[in-house]
C-alpha cells in the first residue's frame, strides 16, 4: 500500500474521532435538566433553595459560560489530557475511568471472543449443511436468542444460576473482602465474569452466526470450491480452508462494527449484574447529568470502537490478498 493512502486513512480516522468527540460534548447537554439540578434536587438532603449558591456552583463548574466557550475549554483540556472533574463525586474523571475500564474491557472482550467463536463455528456448520436439520435448528435458536431482551435474559440467569442454584455470585466483579492467593483471585474474577459475559455474548453470537452462515452459503456455489472438489480434496479442507476462509472476510468487519453494540449491551449487563465497568458508570452519570463523566465514558468507548475498526481494517488486508496492491 502506498504511503499517501496510509495518510488519507489515518486522517479519516482522526476526523471520525473529532466528529465523535464533538457529538459527545453536545449530546449530553441536549438532555433536559442539568448537573446542578441533579445535585441539588428537591428530594435530596442537600437541597438549597438559594439562587446565589446555584450561581456559585455553576460558576465553579464553568456551566455559566456559553456553550462554545465550554466546548473550547473541553477541547483544550482534552489536548492537555485533562478530562475534567466529576460534578457528582468531585473526583477526576480520568481516575474514575481508569478504575472502571479494565472491567469493561474484560467483560466486552471475553463476551466478544466467546460470541465470535460460537457464532463462527455454528455458522460454518450450518452454512455447509444448508437447509438440513442442523441448519434449520441453529437458525431458529440463534434468531430466538437474538430477539430475547438482554436485561430479561440477565435477570433470568441471575435468578436461576445465582439465586436458585447458587453456582455463581450475584453481583460485582470480585469478592472485596476475601483474602485470596493470586490463583484464588483469578478464579474469583472468572467466577464473577461467567454470567455477565455469557448473557452479553448470547446477543452478539447471533450476528456472527448469521453473517458466517450467509457467507458460507454464498461460497457454496463458488467455482473455486468446485475446483477443490474436482481436485479430490477432503471435505474438511474444502469446508475450512476453502469456503470458511473466504466467508470469514465479512465477519472480520462485522466483529469490529459489532463492538459498538457490545459496549451498549455492556451498559445493560453491567447494570443487571452490578458489574463495576464503564457501562454502569455511564448509567449513573447520565442520571446525575454529570457532563464531564458522560463525556469521558463516551470518549473511551469512541476510542475503543474506532481503534478496533482500524485494527480490523489492517487485519482484513492481511486476510484478503485482493485488498492490497
Amino acid at each position, binding site marked *: 500500500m502506498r504511503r499517501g493512502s496510509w495518510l488519507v486513512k489515518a486522517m479519516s480516522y482522526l476526523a471520525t474521532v473529532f466528529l465523535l468527540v464533538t457529538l459527545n460534548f453536545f449530546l449530553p447537554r441536549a438532555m433536559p435538566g442539568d448537573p446542578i439540578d441533579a445535585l441539588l434536587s428537591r428530594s435530596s438532603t442537600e437541597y438549597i433553595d438559594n439562587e446565589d449558591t446555584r450561581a456559585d456552583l455553576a460558576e465553579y463548574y464553568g456551566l455559566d459560560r456559553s456553550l462554545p466557550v465550554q466546548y473550547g475549554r473541553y477541547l483544550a483540556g482534552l489536548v492537555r489530557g485533562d478530562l475534567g472533574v466529576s460534578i457528582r463525586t468531585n473526583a477526576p474523571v480520568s481516575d474514575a475511568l481508569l478504575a472502571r475500564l479494565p472491567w469493561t474491557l474484560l467483560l466486552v472482550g471475553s463476551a466478544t471472543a466467546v460470541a465470535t467463536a460460537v457464532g463462527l463455528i455454528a455458522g460454518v456448520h450450518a452454512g455447509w449443511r444448508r437447509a438440513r436439520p442442523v441448519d434449520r435448528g441453529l437458525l431458529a435458536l440463534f434468531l430466538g436468542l437474538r430477539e430475547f431482551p438482554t436485561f430479561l435474559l440477565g435477570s433470568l440467569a441471575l435468578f436461576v444460576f445465582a439465586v436458585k442454584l447458587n453456582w455463581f455470585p450475584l453481583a460485582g466483579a470480585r469478592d472485596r473482602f476475601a483474602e485470596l492467593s493470586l490463583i484464588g483471585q483469578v478464579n474469583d474474577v472468572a467466577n464473577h465474569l461467567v454470567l455477565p459475559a455469557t448473557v452479553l455474548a448470547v446477543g452478539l453470537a447471533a450476528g456472527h452466526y448469521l453473517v458466517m452462515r450467509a457467507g458460507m452459503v454464498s461460497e457454496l456455489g463458488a467455482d473455486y470450491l468446485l475446483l477443490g472438489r*474436482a481436485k479430490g480434496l477432503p471435505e474438511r*479442507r474444502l469446508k475450512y480452508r476453502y469456503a470458511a476462509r*473466504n466467508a470469514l472476510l465479512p465477519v472480520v468487519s462485522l466483529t469490529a462494527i459489532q463492538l459498538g453494540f457490545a459496549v451498549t449491551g455492556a451498559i445493560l449487563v453491567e447494570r443487571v449484574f452490578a458489574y463495576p465497568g464503564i457501562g454502569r458508570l455511564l448509567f449513573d452519570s447520565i442520571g446525575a447529568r454529570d457532563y464531564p463523566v458522560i463525556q469521558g465514558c463516551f470518549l473511551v468507548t469512541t476510542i475503543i470502537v474506532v481503534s478496533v475498526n482500524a485494527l480490523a481494517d489492517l487485519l482484513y488486508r492481511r486476510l*484478503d490478498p485482493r485488498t492490497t496492491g
Partner: protein
Amino acid sequence: MTPLLEVADLQVCFGGEVEALRGVSFTLEQGESLAVVGESGAGKSTLALCLAGLVQPPEAQGSVRVEGKELLGAAPDLLRALRWSTVALALQGAPFNPVTTVGAQVAEPLRERRGFGGGPARRRATALAEEVLLDPTLLDRYPHELSGGERRRAALAMVLALDPPLVVLDEPTAGLDPTTRNELVGRVRELADQRGFALVVISHDLPDAARLASRSMVLYAGEAMETGATSRVVSEAAHPYSWALVNAYPVMTTTRDLRPIRGRPPDPRAVPSGCPYHPRCTQAEPVCWEEHPALRSSRGRLVACHFGGLKLLLAAEAVTKTYRGRGPGRQDVVSALHGVSLELREGESVGIVGPSGSGKTTLARILTGHLSPDAGRITLEGTPLPTSWRGQARAVRRRIQLVMQDPWDALSPRLTVEELVREPLDVSKGGDGRADHRRSPAEAAVAEALDGVGLPASGPFLSARTHELSGGQLQRVALARALVAEPKVLVADEPTAMLDASEQARLMVVLRERQVEMGLGLVFVSHDVAVVRKVTDRIVVLDAGRVVEEGPSHLVSSTPVSVTTQRLIEAAPAFALEEAVPARAAVPEEDLPDGDL
C-alpha cells in the same frame, strides 16, 4: 481391455425440468483426444462435470466409467481417489481459491493427495510451471494478480500435478487473445503427445477444438449430433447443425461471408420433440419432429439425422455435351462439356468458374434441365431430372430454378413486377395467369418473395415495368421470380455481371440470407473469382468443357493448381495501389507498447 473412459446414455436433468444432457454416449481410449463442441447451453460444461463425478444421481442418470469404475453413485472415497489423479478437470474460466497463492494451489494436490512435504511440492510445482511455460516466480502471486493467460497456464500446471491419464479442459482458451490462445493450444497439444494423456476438450471455439483433438463430437440440446474424425466433422460437416456451426465461424480458412444459424438455441426446459434441431433445420420433414433420430453411420462418421445428414440436392455425373456445326456437310464438332461431375448439398454453394467458352453456361442449362446432355445424368433430390414440362415433371422441375445474366433480356417488358414474380406460380398450377384475385395464397407468396429479396412488397412498385427499374432491382425481381416457387436449388449464371458493385454486394447478401433461411443449394456461375470466392464453399474450374480444378473456395482462390485458375485469379479485380500505400512494413518490435500489463 476396458477403455479409459466410457460414457453410456448419460442424462442430466436439473431441478426436474432443465434437461442439460439427453443421452450422450462415447468412449475414449488411452491417449486419445475428443473435442466436444457446440453453442452455449448445449450441455458441454455439464458433461465436463460429469466426467469428474461432480454431478451425481438423482440429477445424473446413465453411466460414466473411468478405468472401468462407475462414477455415478460412487462412494465419496472412491470419487476422491479418482479425481485429479485419474481424471483431472480444468474448470471453465480457470477458477482459483482467491485467498491462497497460485503456487500453493498447484502444489495442493501433491501435498494433500500424495503426502509431499512443503519443499518437494514446491519444487514439483516449479517444474510444472516451467512445463506449461508459466514464469515460476508467478507462483508466489495471488490468483487476482495473474492475467487471463497466466491463470490458464497455472490451471494447466495444476491439472498435470498428479500426472493423470485423462485430462478434461473446459473452455481452455475462452476470452484469451489470439496469440496467447495459439501458444496455449500448441503447448497443450505438445504436452498431450509427450505425456500421453487422453484429452477431452470442451469448447465453443471450433478452430481450437479442431487443433486439440483428433475426434470431435458436436453437441446440441444435450445430444450428440455428429461424432467422427475432426478433419471430417470440421471440413465437411454432415449434420445440418454441424454444417451451420462451422459456417458461423470466422476463420482464415474460408473466404465466404459468415452465415448465422437461423432461429435460436432450444430452451433446455422445453427441448423440441423428435430431432431437437428440427425447428432450425432447413431440410426438416415431418419425420424430424415425429421421430427421434439415432446416431447412425453416414459419410464416414456417426450422424444423428433421419437423412444421414445434409441431403444431396443436385448431382451431375459425367455430363457430356457436344454442339455440331449447322448446315449440310459441316462436320466441325464443338465439345462444350466433357465428363463433368458435380455434387451440391443442402445449403451448400458451389462456384463454377472458367474463361469464356469453357462451357459454364451450357452446364448451367443442363443442370436446370433446359438442355439435354448427350451423356451423363442429372439427379435432383434423388430423382432423375426430367426434361419435359408435363404433369409430374413440372412439379419436379420447380425445385430447381435458373437466374440468368441479363435481367432485361430474361424478364418480359410487357409484364408488371407482380405479374413477373407471380408467373411461375400460375404456370405450375396451369392457370392462365389472371385467375383468382384478392390476397390469394399466390399473392401472399409474391409479397413474401419480394420481401425476401429486399424489395417493396406492396404499392406502386408492384405495377412497375422492367424499364422503370435499375439493374440491381431487376435482378432481384428475377431472383424473387426464381424463389417464389420455393426451389431447393438455384443456378445463377453470372447474376451480377451487369450490376454495379453496390448492387452486386446487395444481391449477394440477399442470396446468403435466402440460403440461411431456406437451405437453398446454390450453383454460382461466373468468370469472376473475386465474387465467387465470397459466396461459395467450393469452386469448380472449367476450361474447354473439362473440370481442371476443384476444391474449397479458399484453397482454389489462394493457391491455384491449374494454369486456367491462375490466369483467372490474375484477371480478378484487386485494388492495386502499391504506390499509394507506401508503408505497410512491420513496426519494429521494440517500438510497440508493452502489451502485457
